[in-house]
């Protein structure tokens, strides 16, 4: 089994998690594989190419491209009834089973910072958010905590997607078909972001900050707002003496009805066709996505949510649970490159990330928009 190892999901965690399963199934030995610095998404294609694929893969939602390599799980109840199973299906077939939902379009905030800046209510529109950032900056806070590597574009997507998807639920499909342009849809978000950079709300030196450092900086109260997925709640719950942290859903621009909420499947598991022991693999996945303790443990450690699988939550967790309760199913949207049948061309995540870094580096919004348009043109070529 190839799994993602992160600051939350350590190798020890994985080994502990599968231990009851190994005890119950004497014949099955679960080997946890750590893909190292490159991550599962980069390692799996290489391992497939090398003919050395694992039996079970965690954290990689199926794509149209990958589907032929994966075992069709549609016949298993535990797979079809798992969270977001339908959103992630490809041509009506279920290729994965996940443990819960992971929210993406969130802004975590430091309550102390908001008090000091005199902000009494959390922003409900992008315009209010921009005002809030200004107040935070005036109060001497670093308004937005972001960083280098993959996390740079998280903030831009949290800023853009709630509006873009609310206005055009078929955005992913239309972009992939070349019917919409990036500049035509993402334009206002990119311009707002460039403005934030120009105003110093997004610090220029953010690119030198790695993910673990960014997380640490926000937890210890060095910055005011941190755009991150719901798994941050898991980190917060484990932190010793964290700052007083709250969360609000990423707002849309003024006048948008029902802002979309980026959500991913939490910890999806897939079985590879190349596996020589698909039955054992299926048993393992069934255990991982249905066993009360196993699911609750996984949800808790990464701050994810699922009905009927309760665990002891912090206040922050409760706030998130409320957001989940308030979000209608149709408001959920993929982020990044997308999933299921709502996907963008390969390499989109890297490209939007690189272009967000360019924005932080001071590249004008217009240049970034035209670069993204060029990228789409050449990728759809």
């Amino acid at each position, binding site marked *: 089994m190839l799994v993602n190892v992160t600051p939350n999901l350590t190798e020890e965690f994985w080994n502990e998690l599968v231990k009851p399963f190994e005890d119950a199934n004497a014949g099955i030995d679960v080997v946890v594989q750590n893909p190292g610095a*490159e991550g599962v*998404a*980069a390692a799996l*294609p*290489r391992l*497939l*190419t090398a003919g050395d*694929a694992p039996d079970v893969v965690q954290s990689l939602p199926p794509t149209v*491209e990958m589907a*032929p*390599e994966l075992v069709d799980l549609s016949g298993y109840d535990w797979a079809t009834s798992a969270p977001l199973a339908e959103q992630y299906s490809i041509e009506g077939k279920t290729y994965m089973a996940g443990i819960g939902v992971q929210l993406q379009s969130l802004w975590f905030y430091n309550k102390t910072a908001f008090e000091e800046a005199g902000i009494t209510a959390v922003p409900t529109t992008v315009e209010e958010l921009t005002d809030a950032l200004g107040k935070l900056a005036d109060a001497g806070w670093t308004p937005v905590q972001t960083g*280098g*590597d993959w996390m740079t574009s998280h903030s831009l997507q949290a800023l853009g997607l709630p509006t873009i998807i609310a206005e055009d639920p078929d955005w992913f499909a239309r972009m992939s078909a070349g019917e919409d342009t990036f500049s035509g849809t993402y334009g206002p978000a990119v311009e707002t972001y460039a403005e934030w950079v120009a105003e110093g709300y997004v610090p*220029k*030196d*953010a*690119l*030198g*900050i790695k993910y673990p450092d960014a997380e640490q900086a926000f937890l210890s109260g060095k910055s005011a707002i941190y755009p991150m997925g719901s798994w941050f709640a898991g980190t917060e719950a484990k932190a010793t003496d964290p700052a007083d942290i709250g969360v609000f859903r990423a707002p849309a621009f003024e006048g948008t009805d029902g802002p979309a909420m980026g959500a991913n499947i939490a910890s999806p598991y897939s079985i590879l066709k190349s596996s020589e022991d698909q039955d054992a693999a299926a048993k393992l996945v069934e255990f991982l996505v249905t066993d009360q303790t196993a699911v609750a443990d996984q949800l808790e450690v990464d701050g994810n949510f699922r009905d009927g699988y309760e665990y002891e939550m912090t206040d922050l967790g409760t706030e998130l649970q409320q957001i989940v309760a308030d979000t209608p199913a149709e408001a959920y949207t993929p982020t990044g490159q997308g999933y299921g049948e709502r996907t963008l061309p*390969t*390499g989109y995540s*890297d*490209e939007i990330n*690189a*272009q*967000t*870094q*360019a924005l*932080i*580096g*001071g*590249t004008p919004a217009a240049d970034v928009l035209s*670069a993204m348009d*060029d*990228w789409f043109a*050449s*990728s759809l*070529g």
Partner: protein
Amino acid sequence: MASTLAVAPARRRPAARVWRERLPGIVMGGPAVLVFLAMFIVPMILAFVLSLTDWNGFSLSFTFIGLDNYAEAFRNPRTVDAAVFTAVVAFFGTILCNGVGLALAALISGSGRANTLMRTIFFYPYIISSLIIGFLWSAMLAPEGAVNGVLAHVGIPAVPFLTEVGFAKASVILTIVWSSFGFNMILFLAGMKSVPLEYYEAATIDGASRWQQFRSVTMPLIAPVFTVNLVLTLVGLLKVYDVVLALTDGGPAGSTQTIVYQILKNSFGQSELGFGAAQSVILLVVTAVLGLAVTFARRGAEKKVAE
């Protein structure tokens, strides 16, 4: 293929004898040829074939798409940027490595312990893996790294060595120069030491200054070493990857991605193996053409010296 070893000239030999004489040559040459074919020639042909397909690296099916991947390589802004940056690295890197290497070689060409010590100090990074060099300099140049730490003590604000496009590009080039000019220097030193002392004596009698001696005696006589240095550095820099991976990981904003970085990313990270293969073929052709071009261009210069 291999025929005979040191055979005495013989007319018409019976076939069995011919084979008996050829056998040792085949036994001796065969294994190396097989290994070379399997690990160089077959993969090269495979790379070319793959470059004409849209294979993702694991599917059972793929289609031939002609030269589309090559067209994509020239059209994709990321790839073009990477090619330009690689060219910049190769150009400035070659000039700086050889310029610094030559200057320092001239300064420490004498014998004596101090010179040997300097030689060791200038050269040692060469034996360290580029990946580790990259990590070391990334720790030196990071926003909270050692260099900015020292600058802070003297009251200079942090310099975005790795986080601003222009600085990051320069940092990559200078890190490469830091770690490898020593190799060029060593070759120049060897070239200088092979110049017979009599030449300098004659020049001194003619009243030539040290600088004149360097220009009219040393430089022409080390022309062949110069060629070797230029070609080695150029060919080496065209495939630079490890140091970039560790130092900037291609960032910020993808500005320091090189061709090899793109090849590996496209091939494995994004399952566009055909596209990666097309870039590989292009790099191969460019490397061979540039390497040979510099060699021939320099051969002219070397000949002039010989006359």
